[in-house]
């Protein structure tokens, strides 16, 4: 079943990136082409038929003598597969990216073509990681994603951004090296790179010391790309050094990579229970650490950054439970949380743009100046903290349910505890920004925060709000289809 439009989801953003870079400096051209390109990026995942794509038309081959390979048939081409889950994730990424691009082209006086082209490159890379069914191709696009995310942060300028990017790239070097080392070990042992073939070749038995080392190395890569425990401070530094609107895109990308690489790991070594145990333990640690660190921050951007890391830990809990219900709940929470967290980041972006600061000791008394913003932000806070009727409630509830079903009720307690901590931390930020009296600093600097939000930002916030409420009220049509996908992940072991 060949689906012709699949490569366009990656290739079109790449072409757009090249052209936007060439146009850099011509303001009008960049504005127009950026908007048009985003429309195409939004449309392609909706138009593409489900199926798979074999690059270079190379088919499946069975011409190998049995002494040369452990499975009867192997895929010769790089394969991408596209189904409901991939469609949902790629479209979500496109929506969040559209807000970032449009808010850049409409709010900034001088648009930067290079900056937009980096955003395009990161969209392409993450979409590829979501769809890929080939383990080396996954590595290549993970590297593109790492460098382009660092570049987006560098574009913000300043010493903090450089330091965050340096750390991110150095540890990204370790993670990339580990992933490729693991791939090399798997390629040497089984002789294939296609993930479905590897799944068949490994066949649920992980006993060989070489393969165990490969598992460990690939898990290190997963931990880095999703910002789980030993690497949590690197990701949160990155988010807080970026502009808050781009941080919304970065945290969405992180969650998609977490889901995509996590599912690949489960497909390959899902039968190996020590791996899922390690992943689960580190995810729990991230969730609790992140929430506690968020409580301690005095800067709204850093506070949100740590909350985002903590929520990624929660998604990791769902994925690494390894049961069909857990995987489905984890994926569902990744989508919900990406939406709700983006809502929060965009409200903070607005505050940051106008007040030129996000320091909680300086902000204050904004409720009378911007009541609509306060209302939207409180919706975001309630949604992230898992309070009904918003969307994250549905998924957090299911994660807790699946921890109990998997036989770890104490994990459910920890999840609830983490959620409460997140809620308290976010409410602290909300109180200090909106509810308390105006601080002298704000009064002195005469910050003009009027009620008139820019139209584009307002539209983005309203769409995200509606998505939160809509999924919260009617989760089933969405969740059922994700649960089907999760069942397919489980096949074979």
């Amino acid at each position, binding site marked *: 079943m060949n689906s*012709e439009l699949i*490569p366009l989801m990656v*290739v079109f953003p*790449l*072409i757009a*990136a*090249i052209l936007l*870079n*060439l146009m*850099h*400096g011509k303001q009008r051209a960049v504005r127009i082409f950026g908007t048009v390109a985003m429309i195409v990026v939004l449309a392609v995942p909706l138009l593409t038929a489900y199926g798979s*794509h074999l*690059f*270079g*038309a*190379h088919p499946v081959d069975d011409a*190998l003598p049995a002494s*040369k*390979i452990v499975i009867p048939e192997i895929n*010769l*081409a*790089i394969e991408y597969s596209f189904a409901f889950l991939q469609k949902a994730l790629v479209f979500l990424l496109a929506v969040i990216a559209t807000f970032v691009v449009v808010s850049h082209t409409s709010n*900034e006086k*001088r648009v*930067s*073509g*290079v*900056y937009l*082209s*980096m955003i395009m*490159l990161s969209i*392409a890379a993450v979409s*590829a990681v979501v769809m890929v069914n080939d383990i*080396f*191709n996954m590595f*290549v696009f993970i*590297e*593109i994603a790492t*460098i382009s995310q*660092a*570049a987006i942060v*560098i*574009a*913000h*300028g300043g010493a903090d951004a*450089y330091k965050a990017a340096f750390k991110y790239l150095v540890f990204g070097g370790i993670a990339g090296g580990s992933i490729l080392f693991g791939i090399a*070990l798997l*390629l*040497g*042992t*089984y*002789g*294939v*790179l296609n993930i479905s073939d590897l799944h068949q070749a490994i066949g649920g038995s992980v006993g*060989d*010391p*070489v393969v*165990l*080392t490969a598992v*460990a190395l690939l898990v290190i890569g997963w931990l880095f790309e999703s910002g789980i425990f030993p690497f949590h401070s690197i990701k949160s530094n990155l988010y807080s050094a970026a502009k808050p609107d781009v941080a919304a895109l970065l945290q969405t990308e992180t969650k998609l990579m977490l889901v995509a690489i996590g599912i690949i790991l489960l497909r390959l070594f899902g039968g190996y229970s020590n791996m899922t145990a390690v992943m689960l333990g580190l995810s729990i640690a991230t969730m609790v650490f992140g929430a506690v660190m968020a409580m301690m921050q005095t800067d709204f951007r850093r506070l949100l950054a740590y909350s985002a890391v903590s929520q990624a830990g929660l998604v990791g809990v769902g994925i690494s439970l390894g049961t069909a219900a857990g995987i489905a709940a984890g994926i569902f929470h990744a989508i919900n949380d990406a939406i709700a967290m983006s809502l929060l980041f965009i409200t903070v972006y607005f505050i940051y743009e106008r007040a030129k600061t996000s320091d909680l000791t300086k902000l204050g008394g904004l409720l009378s100046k911007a009541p609509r913003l306060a209302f939207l932000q409180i919706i975001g806070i309630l949604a992230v903290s898992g309070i009904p009727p918003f969307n994250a409630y549905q998924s957090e509830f299911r994660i807790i349910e699946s921890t109990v079903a998997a036989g770890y009720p104490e994990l459910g307690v920890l999840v609830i505890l983490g959620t409460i901590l997140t809620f308290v931390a976010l409410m602290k930020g909300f109180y200090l920004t909106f509810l308390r009296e105006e601080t002298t600093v704000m009064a002195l600097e005469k910050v003009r925060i009027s009620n008139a939000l820019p139209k584009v930002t307002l539209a983005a916030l309203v769409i995200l709000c509606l998505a939160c409420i809509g999924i919260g009220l009617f989760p089933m049509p969405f969740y059922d289809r994700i649960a089907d996908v999760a069942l397919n992940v489980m096949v074979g072991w």
Partner: protein
Amino acid sequence: MEDRGSQQMRNLLAAVFLGIFSYFLIHSMFNFDIIPGTSYIYNLKGPLIAPNMVTVVLFDWRAYDTLGEAFILITAVFTTGILFGRGVLGGDVSQKDTTPVRPPTVVQKIFSAPLVFIIVALGLVLTLGGHITPGGGFQGGSVIATAFFLSVVVFGFKHNVFSISHHNLERLEGIGALIYLCLGLVGLAVSGYYLYNVGANIYPLGVGETLQELLKYPDSTNAGIIPYLNIGIALKVLSGFCTIATLLMGAEKK
């Protein structure tokens, strides 16, 4: 004081983990057995396309990986550009060129100019013959970049042998990447598969004779579009490394 204590504690912990990790890594390296797998089939069928198997794997079987890799270099070039002020938010920051301009000595002049030409010729040979002999787009491109390096070091950026501006380097890079992307799109348009090797057409997929002849490299081998992809990659690698080098050289020294 407490800070240093925690620092030492962390280092100790890191050292212990590194030790355990090294033990397992080396242990598994001693037990690593290889089976040929996919490579065997690539070697079995690859000579249908071109003699050099590594080039065939890079530009036909797994051409899409090579595309991704090309874009990593492009991303790195853009990122370095952003770092030194091109395209940062709130308007570009232009840099002063602080490369010290020294007039080259006679010996340098006599030796470096011919050397540059020889290196460039070697790069061209490596690129164009990449599908037959060891070599290819990466090698050729980086050899030419080395020549550029040499001429910039000797003659300075303004008066280098290539006399190519920043802006043209950028364009060259864009052109190289677009050659690759568009040849892939041709395959998608005529056969339904991205990066199908239209010129070689080893799985007859309804590609017209004229198009096949047009995209076939005039050569006794059956390489199809591989040499053109090689040229695109060479342009991109060449301009990528040159841009990075000039950007790093242009940084202010404090």
